[in-house]
């Protein structure tokens, strides 16, 4: 039996939350594409410790995990779907763009909205055909301009970080101007001083890079 088979066996045979967590951590650290189906399965186990490890493992596997994840989206297991969205956000593959947009605006869990909003700012744009790129960028911009008004501070925080990242990756100076204006407004008017400060930091960065 190969080492990976043994690690997978360890996950399947774990009979306590603690053992499952340890077995998943080991499997995730092996960074083997063979582990992908098992790691995806773990996302549905309602074991947060194990799900965190599986999520990190899938993110580190990157693009190769995206197709099996998209094929396994579980509409009936909210927990599993929420973890998948975190994986998509972490990998940044543009194929997950529609999912991230929907999750960042309408998921009921603030931590899923937060992760999705963060993911929108770190998409790997070069993986999109040039013909689709501008349309997708505009979608992300519009979405972030919605999530920046979220009632939860942490979703707004993630949106600021993403707008800063988006500014760096797009070439449309009109949109860049809009981002700058938006960040400027937040740096003066958000009800949370912490967010005003994060927006100021973003603006300072933009000016440094100009």
């Amino acid at each position, binding site marked *: 039996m190969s080492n990976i088979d043994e690690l997978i066996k360890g996950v399947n045979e774990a009979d306590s939350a603690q053992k499952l967590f340890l077995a998943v951590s080991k499997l995730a650290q092996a960074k083997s594409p063979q582990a992908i189906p098992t790691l995806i399965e773990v996302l549905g186990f309602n074991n947060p410790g194990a799900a965190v490890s599986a999520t990190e493992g899938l993110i580190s596997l990157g693009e190769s995990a995206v197709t099996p994840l998209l094929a396994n989206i579980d509409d009936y297991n909210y927990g599993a779907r929420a973890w998948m969205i975190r994986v998509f956000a972490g990998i940044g593959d543009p194929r997950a763009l529609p999912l991230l947009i929907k999750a960042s605006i309408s998921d009921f869990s*603030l931590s899923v909205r937060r992760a999705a909003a963060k993911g929108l700012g770190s998409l790997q744009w070069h993986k999109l055909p040039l013909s689709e790129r501008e349309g997708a960028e505009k979608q992300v911009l519009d979405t972030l301009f919605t999530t920046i008004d979220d009632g939860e501070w942490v979703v707004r925080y993630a949106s600021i970080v993403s707008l800063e990242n988006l500014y760096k990756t797009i070439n449309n100076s009109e949109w860049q101007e809009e981002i700058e204006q938006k960040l400027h407004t937040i740096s003066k008017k958000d009800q949370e001083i912490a967010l005003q*400060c994060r927006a100021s930091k973003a603006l300072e960065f933009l000016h440094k890079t100009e």
Partner: protein
Amino acid sequence: MTEAPNLTPEIAIQNLIQTEDLGLRYYAAWWLGKFRVNTPEAISALLLGLDDNRDIAPDGGYPLRRNSAKALGKLGNAEAVLPLINALDCEDYYVRESAAQSLEMLGDKRAISPLSALLQPAIQDDQLTAYGTDTVADKPHLYQPYEAILEALGTLQAKNEVNLLKPFLKHPVPKVSYGAHRALYQLTGDNIYGEKLVEALQGKELQLRRSALMDLGAMGYVKGATAIASAYAENSLKLIAMKGLLEHQINFDQQTNQSLSHDTIMIMDLMDSLL
């Protein structure tokens, strides 16, 4: 059974004032706090709720008083201070706990001496007494809500009470001990108390790690930033704690006329990594 209704401030206040449906009253008190309905009418209705005698829980406590006390803390109206101080004498432990937490939020120094008085019987010759450490027979709680009281005294800057607080550092209930560390850090600025809570982030129980995280956030212990970011707990909680540090640091920057100091940027970089 009362359905959770769609409320407006006016309906919530009416629901709270009426005396027929206890469920509606209970929900209305919570709702007024949650949605920060800070009108004189809301305050008067909640003050009525704080004196309620009708709504009695199976454990003999007063659910409506508990909710009213919590809501009054969120509304930031000084009119609630004296009634909440009176509520510190209520026979229901959870009413006393909510009152202490709300007095902390209201930030009125008049609460210092009544809160300190609740600690006195727990101390003799600078040591904790059995009254201070025992749980009440058949109940899951201590005689007084020490954690809430200690935290309130720290926030209210009860600088003359340092000696009264010190014995609680060694309280056998970890959360009470954490509360004492947090308060004594706020009162003295001595890092020794902050470092003890940073150590607690390595503890075995998730609940206690969470508790230490929240304490470090509340006291704005910036030196603990890296330890908080790498603690074994949910990112959501770590972000809340880090926001506490950030707010503390921004305040410090403003006082020292800096903008975006090195520490402020360090905290935000850590927060970005937790998203």
